[in-house]
């Protein structure tokens, strides 16, 4: 099986077995982290929806809270 290419200085070569093992471990860690972040985002979205429902019962909206300065606009991370 062809292993991914790496470059050290000007030399391009396939990964060694040890480097490939680390590469695969990194891939697994990245997937796990992405999954964890997705789960956290899901929980956050659910909590937000629940909070908005409670606000609605009170006759308030997020815009009302922003106008009162009680919350900050939520940042959005688009790429990173």
């Amino acid at each position, binding site marked *: 099986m062809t292993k*991914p*290419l*790496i*470059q*050290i*200085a*000007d030399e*391009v070569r396939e*990964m060694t077995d040890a480097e490939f093992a*680390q*590469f695969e471990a*990194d*891939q697994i*860690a*990245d997937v796990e982290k992405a999954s964890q972040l997705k789960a956290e985002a899901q929980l956050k979205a659910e909590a937000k929806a629940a909070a908005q429902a409670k606000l609605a019962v009170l006759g308030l909206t997020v815009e009302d809270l922003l106008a009162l300065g009680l919350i900050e606009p939520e*940042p*959005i*991370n*688009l*790429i*990173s």
Partner: protein
Amino acid sequence: MAIGRIPEPGTGIPESIIAAKGDILTGTANDTPAVLSVGTNGHTLVADSATATGLKWAAPAGGAGLTKITSATFSAVSSVSFPDNTFTSTYKDYLVQFNVTNVSANTNFQARMRASGSDNTATEYFDATLVLTMGNTSANRANGNQNKFNLGYANSGTDQFSRAFNFISPQIATRTRIWGGGLGVTSDYVTNTENDTQLLHHNVASSFDSFTFIASGGTMTGYYAVYGLEA
């Protein structure tokens, strides 16, 4: 008829002492001539009392400033490492320019410190990033106790990823800190072009001589350059 002194045989410097182009005549002590061979192209002769001749060839210092140490292009690789011994005691700090001009989708840009030909994989990496996009949205992210620095993520539209980093004395056995930033540009350059300010910290007092950029989950094409900063 003028009469001059005839040199005593054996006391002159024989021409055979010069053996090659560029040899220069020096002295190692009183009445002790010696040859110093030519140095590397571009190097200049400087005094150095630690050498036998009191002289050595060295790269021109040029006063405080930037000196290019190494650079390379790379194409469709999963990682790229600087040569061993890129970071040495010659310079105090280092400036690194890293530009990716093509990257496969869903690639995580990561990095590791490197020493004696191996990446350091200790869970001692910390990173903090502030993000501001052209669309005037902002975000921040931070990671601790990782086994690599997390630099950013390339989605399917990313067509450029660049970083300029200041390495604070990575060659000294202290905790290594790197600060700088860069950009990530996508085809939707208004809302998805971001400016990143980044701080990286390796939490062990180790000496490193190189650095590795990693395209986890993909490959990258681009170039890098490393400069030594003279205090």
